[in-house]
C-alpha cells in the first residue's frame, strides 16, 4: 500500500496488487519457474500493456491476477482484499462479478453459436450489455448465429472479446486479443477494449507481441524469464485508430 508509485493521471487507488507472486510448474522431475516473485499494482481505470518474449510468464501472471490460477507463493490483493486467501466460492464470485477475460486460445464453446457464447456470460452478469450490442461493437452483427467452426480465427477472437466486454467488467484481461487479426479489424477490437476502459473506467490489462499496441497504454510492463524487467509510463495514450503496424 505504501509503495511509492509515480503520480498518475488516472488514479492512485490500486485495483489489483501483486506482492512477491511466483509460480512454479512441476512436471515430473522438471521444475519450470514461470514467475519468479513479481511485485505489481494495477490502478483503477488504467490500461496496461504487457510485453515480453514467448514463455516469459505473461499469461501466467494474467491468469493469477484474474483469479483463474493460484500462485505458488506471494499474495494478490483486489481492492485491498487478499485474493489469494479467497476460497473457491469467493474466487468464483470474484470472476463472475468483476473480471472479463479474453483468452489466448479464444475458448469458445463449439456447440454454441456466437451469440450463445456471449449469452453464456451475460446470463450471469450483474449489469451486462446485450449480447447483440456486444457483438455489434466488435463488428460481428452479421455473424451472430454462426457456430465457432463456421467462423474464421479472427472472428472467433472477436467473439471472445465481445464475450469479455459484454459483462461491463471492473477488470478486463486480454491475452493477445489481436493475435490473429489484420490491422483494420485489430483496430476495431482495440477500440472496443479502449472504449470499455474509457467509458466504464475498467482496469484493463492487455498482453501483446505487437509493440505498437503499447502506445495506447498508460503503462507498459516488460517481462522476461518470469520477472518484470522494465516499466514504461507513457506520457500520453494514443487512440487505437492512431496506431499503425
Amino acid at each position: 500500500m505504501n509503495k511509492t508509485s509515480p503520480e498518475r493521471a488516472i488514479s492512485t487507488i490500486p485495483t489489483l496488487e501483486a506482492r512477491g507472486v511466483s509460480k512454479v510448474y512441476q512436471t515430473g522431475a522438471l521444475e519450470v519457474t514461470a514467475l519468479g516473485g513479481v511485485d505489481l499494482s494495477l490502478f483503477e481505470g488504467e490500461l496496461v500493456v504487457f510485453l515480453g518474449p514467448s514463455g516469459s510468464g505473461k499469461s501466467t501472471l494474467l491468469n493469477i491476477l484474474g483469479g483463474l490460477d493460484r500462485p505458488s507463493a506471494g499474495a494478490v490483493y483486489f481492492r485491498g482484499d487478499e485474493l489469494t486467501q479467497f476460497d473457491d466460492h469467493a474466487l468464483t464470485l470474484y470472476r463472475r462479478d468483476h473480471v472479463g477475460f479474453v483468452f489466448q486460445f479464444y475458448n469458445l464453446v463449439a456447440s454454441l453459436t456466437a451469440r450463445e457464447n456471449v449469452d453464456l456470460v451475460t446470463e450471469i452478469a450483474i449489469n451486462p450489455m446485450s449480447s447483440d450490442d456486444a457483438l455489434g461493437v466488435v463488428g460481428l452483427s452479421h455473424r451472430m448465429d454462426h457456430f465457432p467452426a463456421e467462423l474464421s480465427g479472427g472472428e472467433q477472437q472477436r467473439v471472445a472479446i465481445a464475450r469479455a466486454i459484454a459483462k461491463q467488467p471492473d477488470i478486463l484481461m486480454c491475452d493477445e486479443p489481436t493475435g490473429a487479426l489484420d490491422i483494420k479489424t485489430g483496430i476495431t477490437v482495440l477500440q472496443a477494449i479502449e472504449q470499455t476502459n474509457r467509458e466504464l473506467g475498467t482496469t484493463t490489462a492487455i498482453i501483446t507481441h505487437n509493440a505498437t499496441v503499447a502506445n495506447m497504454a498508460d503503462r507498459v510492463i516488460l517481462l522476461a524469464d518470469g520477472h518484470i524487467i522494465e516499466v514504461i509510463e507513457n506520457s500520453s495514450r494514443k487512440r487505437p485508430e492512431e496506431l499503425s503496424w
Partner: protein
Amino acid sequence: MVMTFFKPLDRKLIRDLMRMWAQALAIAMVVAAGVAMYIMSEGMLRSLGDTRDAYYERYGFADVFAPLKRAPNSAVVRIENIPGVRRAEGRISKVATLDMPGIREPAQEKILSYPDKDHPAINRLYLTEGRWFRPGARDEVLISEAFAMAHGLKPRDKVTALINGRKRDFEIAGIVLSPEFIYALAPGAMFPDDLRFAVMWMPRSMLAAIFNMEGAFNEIVLHMEPGANRDQVIAKVDEVLDPYGGIGALGRDRQISHWYLSGEMEQLENMGRVAPPIFFAVAMFLLNMAVSRWVELERSEIGLLKAFGYSTRAVALHYVKFVMVITAVGYLMGAIAGTWLGRGLAVMYQEFFHFPFLYFSMHGDMYVIAASISFAAALIGTWHAVRTAADLSPAVAMAPQPPTSYRRSKNDRWIKKALGPTRMILRHTFRWPVRSGLTCIGISMGVALLISAMFFQDATETLIETQFTMIERQDATVSFIEPKPQRVVENVASMPGVMVAEPYRYVPATLRFGSNERRMFIRGIVQGATLNRLLDRDLKAVDVPKKGVALSTKLAEILGAGLGDVIEVDVREGRKPTLLLPVTMISEVYIASPAYMDLKTLNRALLEGDNTSGVHVMLDEAYADDFYAMLKDTPSVAQVSVKETMLQAFRNTLEENINIMNFFNTIFAVVIAVGVVYNAGRISLSERARELASLRVLGFTRNEVSYILLGELGLLTLVALPIGVVIGVALAWLWTLSLDTDLYRIPLVISSATFGYSISVVLAAAVGTAIITQRQIAHLDLVASLKTRE
C-alpha cells in the same frame, strides 16, 4: 433464476445430445439391458409367487398329507381332534393305467375320490371345462387339464382304464385343475410328462365300490390352525395312523407338486436374483465409466465456465442433466421392455403350471429400485468426473490439450523399440492406466457374461449325457403296483422284444445322520447291473457296494455324511425296520439325490424274500409295440416309463425354466458386450479427434491414423479376452452353485464352442466398432477440428 442461467447451456446440452446420439444410445441400451433384466425377472417371480399363494389359498391346498393302508371313516375325527388341526378329510387314492390311443405304452394314472356331491374343504378343484358329477352318476370322471390337453380330450369323451385288474370305460364329465397337481408328476418320475400321467377324480362311492373301500379311506389331508407347529401335528398324525398302516405324513413342503414347484421356482429365482443383479451391476459400471470419460472430455469447457464465474454446482448440474437424459431414456426403454417381457414370461409359466388365473405383481418398488440404482450410478460417475475437472484451476483446465504429459514410464525402453504409430498406442495406453484398465474390464465383462450365459447348454448336455446314457441305459422301466417276487422278472424277460431285464427295488425310508434327515426312496440295485448303473465320483461305472449304502453326492451333502459314517435308515414299508448302515460309496448323480443298496442286502434287511418293485428293460425296437401293447393288458403294472420320453420331459422342463431365462441372458450379454466395445471406441475417438486430425494434417494416411486409434481398442480387447474367460468361468461356477438344488445340479462344463462364440461376439463388436470408427475417421473434418478449440 437458475433456469435463465442455463438457457444457453441447455441449448448446448441439446446440441451435444444430438451430436452424440449414437453413443448416447449405446449407453442407454446398456442401462436398458440391466433394467429390463431386473424388472423382467423380478416381476415374473413375484407374479408367480403371488399367484401360487393365492391359488393355494382359494382352493384350500392341504397343509399335511398322510397316506395309509386303510382306516375307517371314523378315524377322521381322531385326526381332527389333534391340537393344531383345523379340519381333516379322508379320501381314497389309487393308481391305475390308461390305454390311450395316442401312445403305445400304458399311461399312468392317479385316481382320487371326490365327494359325490358338494365340494371338499381341502384341495378343491377348478373346473375349466364341462361339468361336475351328476348325482348318482356311474363311471363319470373328472380329469386333469394337462393330460386332457395333451390327448385332446373333451368332456363326454371316453377313456379306458385298467383299474383294479379290470378294464373299464369312463366318461369325462369335466376337465379340472388342482392346486395339488400344479406340477403333475407321476410317483417316482422326475419330470412331468403330460402325455403319460393323468390325474382322475371319481365320485367317492364309485371308487370305494371298485376297490372295496366302502366306509374307509387310505389318505388323510388336513388344514392346520394358523400358527400350529407342523412337526408336532405330523408326529401326532403318524401316531394316530400307525395302526392303520400309515407310512408317514408329509408336510406341504414335501408334497411332490409343491416340492417340485418350489424347486423350480427356486431355480427361477436363482436365475432371477443372480443374473439380473450381475447384469445390472455391469451395466451400471459401464454407465459410470462412459459418463465419467465423457465428462473428462469436457474438461476445458468446464474450466471455461468456471472462469466466467459459474459455480462448480452449476457446472455439475449441466452435466448431470445431460447424463440424466441418457439414463432416463435407457431406464424407460428398460422398464417398458422389462414389464412386457416379465408379463410374457409370467403368462408362459401360467400355462406351464396350469394356474387357473394369474396375478401380475409388477410392483412400484421394483421400478423405484431400478431407477434409483441407475440414476445413482450415473450421478456418481458424473459428479466424480465434474469434481475432478472443476477442482483444477480454470487456467489449467482450459490449457490447450497437448500438455497431456506422457510419462517416461518403466515400459519406455521397449515402447521406444516400437514403430512410431505403435509407440503412440502404447504410450497412450500406459498414460491412462486406470482408464485403460476399466475399459479392459468392461470388455472382459462382456465376454464373461456371454460365457456364463452360454455354458448352460454345455452343462445340461453333459448332464443329459451322464444321466441318460451312462447311468440310465434302459429303454423302459416297468414298475409294479405291489412289490413282486423275483420270478416276475423272468416273465418280463420272456415278453416280446425284451433283450435284457434287470430288477430293482424302491423302498420308502427316512435317512438320518446326526440332526439331518431326509425322507426318500432307497434304490435296490443288482450286482453287475448293466441298465441302471452307479457312477463313482470320476464318472466311472461301478457296482453297487454289497454292504452298506451308497449315497449320491448331493444326499451326502444334505445329510452331512461321508464315507464310513453310519447312518440310520427308518424303512417306512412292510415291517418298518430301522437299519444302521455304513456309507460305503459316494456316487455322482446330477438328477435327484438318491441312495442305493445292493438289492439282495436290502431285501435281507427287510426280512422279505426276493422282492422287486419293477424291472428295467432293454428292448428290440422291432418288437417294442408288441411289448407295450401287452403291458397295457397287464394288471399288476403301475407304470411304464420310457427313457426317451423321460429325456424329452427333462428337456421340456429345462426348456421351460433355464433355457428361457438363459435366452434373455444371452441377448442382454450381447447388448452389453456390444455397448461396451462401441462406447470404448467412440469415446477414444472423441478424446483424440484433434490429435488424429493433426496427424492427418502432418501427412499421416487415413489408415495410419485409424491404426493409432483402433490399435488401442484392439490391444485392450486382446488383453480383455483372457481376463473375460477367467471371469466367465468364475461366473459359471457361481451358477452351478446357485442352481444346486435337490431337483438337479449342473456340472461345470464349458465347451470350446462356448468360449469361441463368446469371444467371437466381442470380437465382432470390436470389428463393427472399428468399421464405424474408421468411417468417422475418414470423415474427420480436418479444418474444423483444428480451428475450433473446445
